[in-house]
C-alpha cells in the first residue's frame, strides 16, 4: 500500500460507509418499501398510465432505479476516492 502521508483511512472508510448506507436505504425503499410493504397504499394512491403505483414499483420502477443507483454510487465513490487520494492511476 503506497498511501500518501495525508491519507486518513478512518475518514475514507467513514465516507464510504456513509455513501453505502444512503445507497442501501434507497435500495430498500424502492423495492421492499414501495414494492412490498406499502404497495397497497401506493396502488390506491395513484396510477402511472395503467400501472397502479405500487405494482409499477414492484415490476418496473425498482429495477430502473437500481440501475441508476449503481451508476450514481460508482460516481460518488470515484469522487470519494479522489478526495482521499486513493484512486487508481
Amino acid at each position, binding site marked *: *500500500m*503506497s*498511501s500518501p502521508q495525508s491519507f486518513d*483511512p478512518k475518514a*475514507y*472508510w467513514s465516507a*464510504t460507509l456513509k455513501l*453505502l448506507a444512503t*445507497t*442501501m436505504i434507497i*435500495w430498500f425503499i424502492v*423495492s*421492499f418499501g414501495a*414494492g*412490498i*410493504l406499502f*404497495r397497497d397504499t401506493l*396502488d390506491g394512491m395513484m*396510477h*402511472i*398510465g*395503467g*400501472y*397502479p403505483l405500487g*405494482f*409499477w414499483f*414492484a*415490476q*418496473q420502477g*425498482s*429495477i*430502473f432505479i*437500481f*440501475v441508476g*443507483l*449503481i*451508476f450514481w*454510487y*460508482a460516481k460518488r*465513490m*470515484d469522487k470519494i*476516492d479522489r478526495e*482521499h487520494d*486513493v*484512486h*487508481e492511476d
Partner: protein
Amino acid sequence: MDLKTLTIIVVGLSFALYIGIAIWARAGTTKEFYVAGGGVHPIVNGMATGADWMSAASFISMAGLIAFLGYGGSVYLMGWTGGYVLLAVLLAPYLRKFGKFTVPEFIGDRYYSQTARIVAVICLIFISFTYVAGQMRGVGIVFSRFLEVEITTGLIIGMGLVFFYAVLGGMKGITYTQVAQYCVLIFAYTIPAVFISLQISGNVVPQLGLGGQMGDMYFLDKLNKTVTDLGFSAYTTGSKSMIDVFCITLALMAGTAGLPHVIVRFFTVPKVHDARLSAGWALVFIAILYTTAPAVGAMARYNLHATVNSSVASGGDMFAPEASIQGESRPDWMKRWEKTGLIMWEDKNGDGRIQYYNEKSKNADFLAKAEAAGWKGNELGSKKADKFVGTVDNDIMVLANPEIAGLPDWVIALIAAGGIAAALSTAAGLLLVISSAISHDLMKGVFAKNISEKTELMAGRVAAAFAVAIAGYLGYNPPGFVAQVVAFAFGLACASLFPTIVLGIFSKTMNRAGAIYGMLTGLIFTLTYIVYFKRDVLLGMEKVPDSQWLFGISPEGIGVIGMLLNFIVAFIVMKMTAPCPDHIQHLVEGIRYPRGSGTAQSH
C-alpha cells in the same frame, strides 16, 4: 421453408458463431483460464455477466411464472435484479481489490484457514451443480421441442458445445461467447415482445405497452377484469403473504450477490473502479429483459384467455356456450404443444368446447354461474405423468408466445436459439467456477501445492470436462428436485457464502472460527429446512403441510433466516475464540481502498 428447417438454420448459425469465438479466444495461461487475463472492459464484462446471469429459467420460465402469479411474480423481478446493488456496494469492488482468482480463495485467505476454504468449496460445488443441472435440462428441452430430437441428442450437442469453449477457452472463451449469447438471447426475447405489445396496445415499447391502453380501457384493468371474471385472483394483487414475499425477495437478492459464478465475473475487469461500473452495466443489460418479462407474461396470459374464450376480447358474456372455443377448431400451436404435454385439453363436460377458468375460485357467485352454464371443471391444463393437471405449464408462455400471437416463423426459430443461448451461457459460467474450485482451490491451494502452472491449467481443463459430463448426466437423469433447484441454489448462497464474504470485508475482527461455524450453520439450517418442506418432491415422502412453515416463510425465502443465523453464530463464536491476527486485519484494511489494485494475481 418449413419451421423445423428454419430453426435448424438459425440455431446452427448461432452455434457456428460461438465456435468461431471459442477458437479465437483460446486460453494460454491460468490467468486467462480463470479471469480472462484480467483486462475485460467493464461494458463487455457487463454484457457477459448478463448472459452468465440470465439462465434458462430467466429466459424460458420467468415470464410464465409472472403470467400466472401476477403481482406475486414481482419477487423474481426485484430479487434477481436488486442483488446487483448488493454486489456493487458490498462485494464486487472489494473482492476485485483483493485480486485473486476464486471465491473460496478469498475466504481461505481472509479467514487464514484451509478448512474455511474447503467449506467454501463445498458450498460452491453444491450451489453450482444444482444450478447447472437445470441449465442442461433446459438445453435438452429446447432441442427436443423445437427440433423434435430426443432430449438425449439435444443434451449431447449442448454438452459438446460447452465442452468446446469452456474447456478450451476457460474464462476468456466464455467471456466472449457470452457476449455473443447475450446478443442472441436479448434479440430473441425482445422481438416477440415488441410485436405483441404492438398488437395489444399499439405501443412499440413493451414496458410502456403494459401500462398502455387497449381500446378504451387500460390493458392492466382489462386483464384484471378478464381474470377475475374467470374466477382467478386479480392480476395486480397477489396471493402470497407479505412476509413471504419480503423474505423470498431478500433471499433472491442476497443469493444473487453470493453466487460464485456471478462474483468471479468481476475479477476479470482491470480496476476497482471498473468493478463498480461493471455491476451497473450488467444490470442495464439484465434490466432490458427483466422489465420486458412482465409485459410478455401479462400479454401472453391475456392472449391465452382471449384464444379460448371469444367473449374476453368482445366483452360479451363469458358463460355463453358459443363463447368457448370449439375443441376441434383450437389453433395449431395448441395441437403442436400438446405433444410436449405443456398444454392439454380434457373435455370434462363433453360439450366439445374448451372452458378455461379457476374451478377453485373463492367467489361463490362465480362458481354458481359456471355451474349454471354447464361447466364441469377447468378443461385447460398440462400433462404430468400422463395425467391431466389443471395448470398450464409456465414455460409455454415464452416458448409458444410467438405462435399464440401469430408471429412469423423466423421469430419462433429465434426463440429456440435464444433459449439455448441463455442455458449454455449460464452452464458455461457455472462449469468454470466448479473447475477452478477444483484445480485452483483444492489442488493448487490444498492438496498439490507444487504443481506447475501448465499442470494446473491442464487440471482445470480436465475438471471442466468432468463437470460437463456430470452436468450432462444430471440433465439427462434429473433427480426429482430439478424444478426446486432455484430455491436450493439461492437459499444456500444467501445463507452461506454471502454473509461470510460480507463479514470478511466489513468486519476487521471476524475470525476463523466465527466464519466457519457461521457458514456451516447457515448451510445446514437452510438445507434442512428446504429438504424437510420439499421432502415430497425430494424423497418421495408425505408432504409436510405449508401451515407448519416457520413464521410463514416458504422454503424459497428461508435463506434469509439462514443468513441471520450465520451472522449471529459468527459473532457469538468470534467473542469466544482467539481474535483475528494483526496481519489479517491489515489485509482487510488493504482491500478497502482501491489504489494498487493491479490485475488479478495467483499469488
